[in-house]
């Protein structure tokens, strides 16, 4: 019985995937050019993220605050980091779409730089999606109430991806791709990423 139900689920999943691929073929991949990148990026404060994931800072909070106050502070910190991962995820999606379009360039150097950007953006997106799921679960299940306040520092690496290191690499890759554009565009990129 279980195997039949599972087979039907697989058939449904496969059929939905076929429909999605048909939709993709119909609509084509969004073609982002440079004008569709910078205004769409949300700034990510890496130093803030560093401080949120710093185990010493967390230990200090735990030391200074009472259990209830610490739980409240930890929830606030989790929500803040969730917002940062949302921004990382959004930025990486924008950059993946741009990299895909840039890979169509006739300049081989540009294609290689775009491939690196795409690779880094996919890694960041994977990290932010997995971290987002973890954080939402922690917030939803109220794990803090059962004296199991989650340790935010554990989120630095998810799925073997060091989030902040990869995001920094993504910024470098984006800068390398945009370096040949006018300085004002590069400035905006460095501000918005």
């Amino acid at each position, binding site marked *: *019985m*279980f*195997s*039949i139900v*599972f*087979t*039907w689920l*697989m*058939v449904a*999943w*496969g*059929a*939905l*995937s*076929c429909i*999605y*691929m048909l939709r*993709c073929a119909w609509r084509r*991949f969004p073609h982002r050019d440079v004008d569709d990148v910078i205004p769409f990026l949300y700034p990510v404060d890496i130093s803030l993220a560093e401080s949120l994931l710093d185990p010493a800072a967390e230990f200090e909070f735990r030391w200074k605050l009472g259990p209830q106050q610490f739980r409240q502070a930890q929830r606030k910190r989790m929500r803040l980091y969730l917002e940062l991962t949302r921004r990382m995820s959004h930025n*990486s*999606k924008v950059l*993946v*779409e741009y990299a*895909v379009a840039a*890979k*169509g360039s006739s300049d081989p*150097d540009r*294609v*290689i*730089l775009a*491939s*690196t950007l*795409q*690779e880094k*953006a*996919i*890694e960041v*997106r*994977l990290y932010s*999606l997995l971290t987002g799921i973890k954080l939402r679960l922690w917030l939803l299940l109220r794990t803090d109430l059962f004296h199991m306040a989650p340790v935010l520092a554990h989120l630095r690496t998810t*799925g*073997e991806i060091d989030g902040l290191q990869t995001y920094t690499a993504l*910024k*470098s890759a984006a*800068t*390398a791709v*945009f*370096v*040949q554009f006018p*300085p004002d565009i*590069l*400035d905006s*990129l*460095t501000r918005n*990423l």
Partner: protein
Amino acid sequence: MNVLEFIPSCMLVVLLGVLLRRGAYKILPFFFTYVLFAVAADIARFMVRDHPHPYYITYYATEASYDVLGVLVMYEVLRAVLGNLIHGRWGRCIFPAILLASILLSVARSHAAPTQFTRRVAFYILVGEIAVRFAQVFIFAGLVTLVPLLGLRWRQYPFGVATGFGLYATVSLLTTTAFSDFGTRFTFLWGVTSLVAYSLTVIIWIWFFSAPQKSGIPTPEVSALSPGDLKKYKDALRRMR
């Protein structure tokens, strides 16, 4: 019906030509081998079609080879799409886990609805074939799910291969699950549906491989930046930190 049966074989020859033109043997060697084998298997089956015993042996021997090649092609697809992500500790477990789940599901299915095979070898080949179909749907549907999540580019050769196999495997699982209720009419329905699905699969492959694809493998040989660009790059990185 007999003439229609040759349509997929003719299209496979066209596909082989397209693959040769695109140099697919360098990008996806297992898939190229699969198509080459499919053409050879069709010829072999055609040659022994009037001799029941040799046809039986040829049919099951080629089916078993299809199963093995199908697994290798799906591994190749997964490796090509996920790139570096598959080399991690968890990444390395993805393919064996899919394969194991597929074999377990296929075995469970064969126990739930026992087949009427007298020869054990034929039975095992059929179980293996259903396991490969499960693995193909798993990998195809999984990769398609990753397209919107990770922003992967869908118009690339490995996705084309996965889409073709995914469509055929989905239809195959559907027909073997749903049409078994039709009794003796099942053979005819299964034959027609498989023929149409396989033809569509080959059309999908031809369509995907009809467009040239730039090599996505980054090489370290990027031309050096000009001194002006290098300064801009360093300044920009400094501002970001």
